């Protein structure tokens, strides 16, 4: 098992043995625990664009030890590269080399976060070149980091400052333990919408959240995470999973709703329950999903159709109901999958449904924004759950070997943390996007 291996190569005699044998040594990732510091050491802020001082002041106000150079710092908690005003590839040299010089000081579980602008067709070619270049450079940093450190980027739409609420919320998320299994990814901030939480420890305080497919696995972890972050949680799953669902509900002090989400009135039932029992509905997590893997050559209609019905058609129908109802500010996060991006052998049906989710959130963003809300997706990579346990052993073993950056599968909580971030009001400036939680690999369900 990956967990046992992780333990062995990180402790005691077996740690040295693994070292001398040259075995891959995945690190124990730095995950969020309430009350823990945001980063495991001082933060190095690189880049001299006009917003640098304001950003530094904000980070100082968060209680961080912010440095403008790394000299004399034994262990850096993170490196933030403010690259939003670069106009030519030549300008990338200074900040990247400064970051490189500091990388050896980066603590285990440290963070590298770049802040830049999107490369658009209308840009001057040199501007687009440096912007797109940042993408490649940061992804490569992610590949080079060890010790559970990660590198990610925030891409600010033109006119959105680095201190916009969602930019800061994204930075907070990417620096924190909540983003442990997110690496080589870019969060696009489209607007200056959003409101930072009064307490970053309870960003969902007062919210009512519905989680579908919550009886086990990632869904149960999402329910627990949203509850930890302050939300009142309604857990939904098929009636046949009701006993496991009841346990989850009782653990998170929420309410259980036994409901088949493929029923035509599923959206109305969810709204009815949330409003009657909790007064409002602020967050919906479309997590329910199934796999019916088969090579396409052997695929039958039952397998194909059931996966499409549960994983995407039900979400489309429920979203119609949510849009038709008066639910101001409703934020939706939907579960996609890296299979829907990179494809996966034996998962044509699943990949179609999960690719569908990515398309759906992109095309639904405007409608939900019009109601003051938003919709995004999270695409998990290889996450150790009951569902991935059904993947053939050989495929699973190969999958783990193909994880060059963090060298391990993620945990359900890693997905849940990303969902909690996107579900928060602070993420209101992020809309229609898909965030991968894949440890910078593209394998798995």
């Amino acid at each position, binding site marked *: 098992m990956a967990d046992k291996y992780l333990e062995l190569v990180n402790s005691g005699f077996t740690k040295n043995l693994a070292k001398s044998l040259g075995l891959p040594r995945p690190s124990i990732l730095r995950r969020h625990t309430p009350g823990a510091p945001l980063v495991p050491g001082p933060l190095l802020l690189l880049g001299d664009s006009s917003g640098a001082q304001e950003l530094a002041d904000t980070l100082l106000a968060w209680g961080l030890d912010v440095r403008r150079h790394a000299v004399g710092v034994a262990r850096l908690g993170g490196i933030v590269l403010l690259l939003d005003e670069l106009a030519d590839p030549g300008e990338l040299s200074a900040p990247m080399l400064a970051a490189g010089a500091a990388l050896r000081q980066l603590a285990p579980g440290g963070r590298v976060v770049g802040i830049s602008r999107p490369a658009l067709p209308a840009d001057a070619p040199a501007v687009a070149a440096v912007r797109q270049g940042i993408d490649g450079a940061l992804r490569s940093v992610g590949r080079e980091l060890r010790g559970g450190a990660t590198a990610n980027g925030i891409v600010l739409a033109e006119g959105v400052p680095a201190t916009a609420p969602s930019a800061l919320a994204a930075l907070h998320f990417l620096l924190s333990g909540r983003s442990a299994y997110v690496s080589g990814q870019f969060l696009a901030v489209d607007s200056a919408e959003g409101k930072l939480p009064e307490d970053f420890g309870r960003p969902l305080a007062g919210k009512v959240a519905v989680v579908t497919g919550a009886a086990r696995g990632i869904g149960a972890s999402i329910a627990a995470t949203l509850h930890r972050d302050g939300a009142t949680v309604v857990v939904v799953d098929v009636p046949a999973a009701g006993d496991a669902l*009841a346990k989850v509900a009782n653990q998170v002090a929420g309410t259980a709703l036994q409901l088949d989400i493929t029923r035509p009135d599923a959206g109305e039932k969810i709204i009815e329950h949330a409003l009657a029992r909790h007064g409002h509905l602020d967050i919906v997590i479309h997590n329910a999903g199934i796999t019916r893997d088969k090579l396409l050559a052997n695929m039958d209609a039952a397998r194909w159709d059931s996966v499409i019905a549960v994983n995407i058609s039900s979400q489309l129908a429920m979203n119609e109901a949510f849009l038709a109802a008066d639910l101001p500010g409703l934020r939706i996060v939907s579960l996609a999958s890296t299979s829907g991006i990179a494809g996966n052998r034996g998962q044509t049906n699943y990949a179609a449904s999960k690719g569908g989710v990515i398309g759906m959130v992109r095309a639904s963003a405007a409608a939900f924004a019009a109601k003051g809300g938003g919709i995004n997706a999270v695409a998990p990579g290889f996450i150790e759950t009951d569902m991935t346990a059904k993947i053939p052993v050989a495929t699973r073993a190969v999958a783990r070997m193909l994880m060059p950056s963090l060298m391990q599968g993620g945990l359900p909580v890693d997905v849940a943390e990303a969902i909690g971030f996107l579900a928060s009001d602070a993420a209101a400036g992020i809309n229609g996007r898909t965030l991968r939680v894949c440890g910078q690999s593209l394998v798995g369900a």
Partner: protein
Amino acid sequence: MSEPLQAIRPAVVIGGNRIPFARSNGAYSKASNQDMLTAALDGLIARFGLQGQRLGAVAAGAVLKHSKDFNLVRESVLGTSLSAQTPAYDVQMACATGMEAIGSLANKIKLGQIDSAIGGGVDTTSDAPIAVSEGLRAVLMDLSRARSTSAKLKALSKFRPRDLAPHAPGTGEPRTGLSMGDHQAITTKAWNVSREAQDELALASHKNLAAAYERNFFDDLITPFAGVSRDTNLRADSTLEKLATLKPAFGRNLGADATMTAGNSTPLTDGASAVLLGSEEYARENDLPMLANFVDFEAAAVDFVHGAEGLLMAPAYAVARILERNNLTLQDFDFYEIHEAFAGTVLSTLAAWESEDFCKNKLGLDAPLGSIDRSKLNVNGSSLAAGHPFAATGGRIVATLAKMLHEKGSGRGLISVCAAGGQGVVAILEAR
């Protein structure tokens, strides 16, 4: 001079939960009463978000109970996420246990003594207590009292090998030695209830229960348990032809008049149920639904020992009294939930209410209570299809009827549950 009555307020049925009922020695054969009751409570707590709440009381019970389960309900509550400050107690009134528990709790709510409560019941015939014989018990008790070695030896000398035979509980009446089914067979014959009529009632029960599952009626009334998500006794594909092939199981000494089969009698069943009750204020403060008012309940008992009345006919008497007290007629109901201990029980009871002789001479009425609209009887199935874990049946019926009344939005329902010992409890619910 009696004290003036305390002002009373409505007691409201908020909702219910049960685990699917399973035929004896089947899916739940390794589950204890405490396991099942805890599961039923857990599902109810999850449905209504009661975690951490201190409820006014939890009352439930089991007909077949191990002596170690003397505090069955309190122990079950301690295994849930309810506040540990929730009082709980055991009730036992044979098959009317659940109704008595729920009715008594409703009374406490009406009197303002408590604001919220859970009532219910549980039973297993798969994990039934088996007792040592009276002989062995007497020896063991003497042994425990003996001080000296010689006294201990003397006590042991009274032991006989035959004392080793264990005593399992049965459904026989202690005072008559007859099984409940054999008692009902006498009543069924006395009321001239035909085999066909019993089989038709059994078939309707299965069809109605299956249809209720099909329209997702039980989605918010049942939580699966031990891998079971539907009552295992349900035979959706049953037919009159199949039922007609079954041989009589009770009253076989009646020869050609023996009409009661395994198909038109309830099987031994394991299961548990729980119903959440509260005052209107409690429901409003906690944003909980109000399905129905628990209006009134009434118990009756008959002298079946000397043959004056059939063992399971007490509800016929209780209904007459509760109707009079509430100024209602038998026809003033939109739903009738008459527990199907046996199809013959339901049909004998209906026949008694139609009988001028019975209503005049036994109930002391001027006119018969009359007949009921059979399309309003057990419309979502009853015990013949769902099964009958003795103490759990009351909770099943109250929650089901309350939901039916709420869906209809008006009207009232009548519940009738017969019980061993010649007893019965009936109740009236009103839609909200």
